[in-house]
């Protein structure tokens, strides 16, 4: 389980996160929701160790990993990489590389975590050709390859930042299938997305960020069972201007 407790962050003088707390359980798909600028991306980056915070705790399977608390000793950087795979909203690979070179890079730099067989399986599933150059990929294919790079790393947790943003319908459908098949099996997934309608029926838990804190957190099926409300219904209530 990833336990997020009391995350705080100010950007210049403005507080962005004022005490965000929630958990991400293994085997569940959790959606971090919020309006633009609410700090969803920042939370994901903080878990990954890419953004130092002003306060708060990030425990992954019991081990504290927040940068500002631990100074990121070597063993922690390794621990974090072995436990969390972060898939940002853009491809973190040199654009001049061909896809097969990028796959070989991952194999080279992530021994023991990278599953080359799974990567090939995913490439086939998404219909991606290895000889293509990253810079020449369409947006949809770049998003798919980004998923390959992130999901073929055998980590117990996966963070996805806007996996559907700006992508064509068919690519979105292909990406949505990832949430049903075995690639996310038993993993804890935390995703942020604006296209909630794409994945409404696939999400287990919703955590809603508002004004720098978690305004609401619920199990989507229980909300439907108890109150007949869809996730979007709840979002309308919480974020009503």
């Amino acid at each position, binding site marked *: 389980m990833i336990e997020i407790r009391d995350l705080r962050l100010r950007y210049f003088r403005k507080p962005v996160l004022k005490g965000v707390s929630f958990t991400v359980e293994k*085997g*569940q*798909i959790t959606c971090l929701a919020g309006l633009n600028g609410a700090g969803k991306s920042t939370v994901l980056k903080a878990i990954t160790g890419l953004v130092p915070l002003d306060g708060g705790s990030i425990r992954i399977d019991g081990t504290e990993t927040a940068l500002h608390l631990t100074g990121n000793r070597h063993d922690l950087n390794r621990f974090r990489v072995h436990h969390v795979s972060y898939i940002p909203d853009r491809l973190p690979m040199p654009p001049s590389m061909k896809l097969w070179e990028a796959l070989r890079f991952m194999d080279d730099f992530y021994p023991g975590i990278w599953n080359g067989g799974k990567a090939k399986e995913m490439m086939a599933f998404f219909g991606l050709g290895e000889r293509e150059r990253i810079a020449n990929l369409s947006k949809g294919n770049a998003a798919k390859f980004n998923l390959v790079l992130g999901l073929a790393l055998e980590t117990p947790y996966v963070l996805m930042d806007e996996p559907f943003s700006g992508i064509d319908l068919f690519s979105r459908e292909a990406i*949505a*299938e990832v*949430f*049903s*098949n*075995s690639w996310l*099996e038993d993993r804890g997934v935390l995703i942020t997305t604006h296209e909630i*309608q794409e994945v*409404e*029926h*696939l*999400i*287990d838990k919703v955590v809603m960020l508002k004004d720098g804190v978690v305004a609401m957190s619920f199990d989507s*099926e229980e909300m*439907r*069972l108890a109150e*007949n*409300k*869809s*996730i*979007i*219904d709840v979002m309308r209530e919480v974020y009503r201007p």
Partner: protein
Amino acid sequence: MAPEDWLVFEFNTREPVYLQVVRHFKQWIATGRLKAGDTIPSRRELAVLAKINPNTAQRAYREMEEQRLIVTEGNSPSRITGDERILRSIRTELIEDAVDQFLMLIKHIDVGTEELLELIRQKHAVIRSGGRRSND
């Protein structure tokens, strides 16, 4: 059932997805697509086929087991129940649900039961004969 038959296209986002899956199973049973004793996909297989979250498939199967729609023996794949009473009650349940919905829709329209029954008789005859004619 072919793999594509398991796919559910639209989900009502205000009703628990797992209950909708259970209802789909009931429909497949009532319409004969799933017969008594048929094996059904595993939870994970269903998730892929129906494009749902594996947890949803898990919940649906648990619900169906509780309602005794499906039986799982040890490690073998789950099967549709062979119990005739349950199968028949599904059929009845679905028809009743449809009738309830229908009656809800026309609740505020002033129409007598006899007129309703005559209309149903006509339309039902058309459907059963396989033809589909526009209103005469």
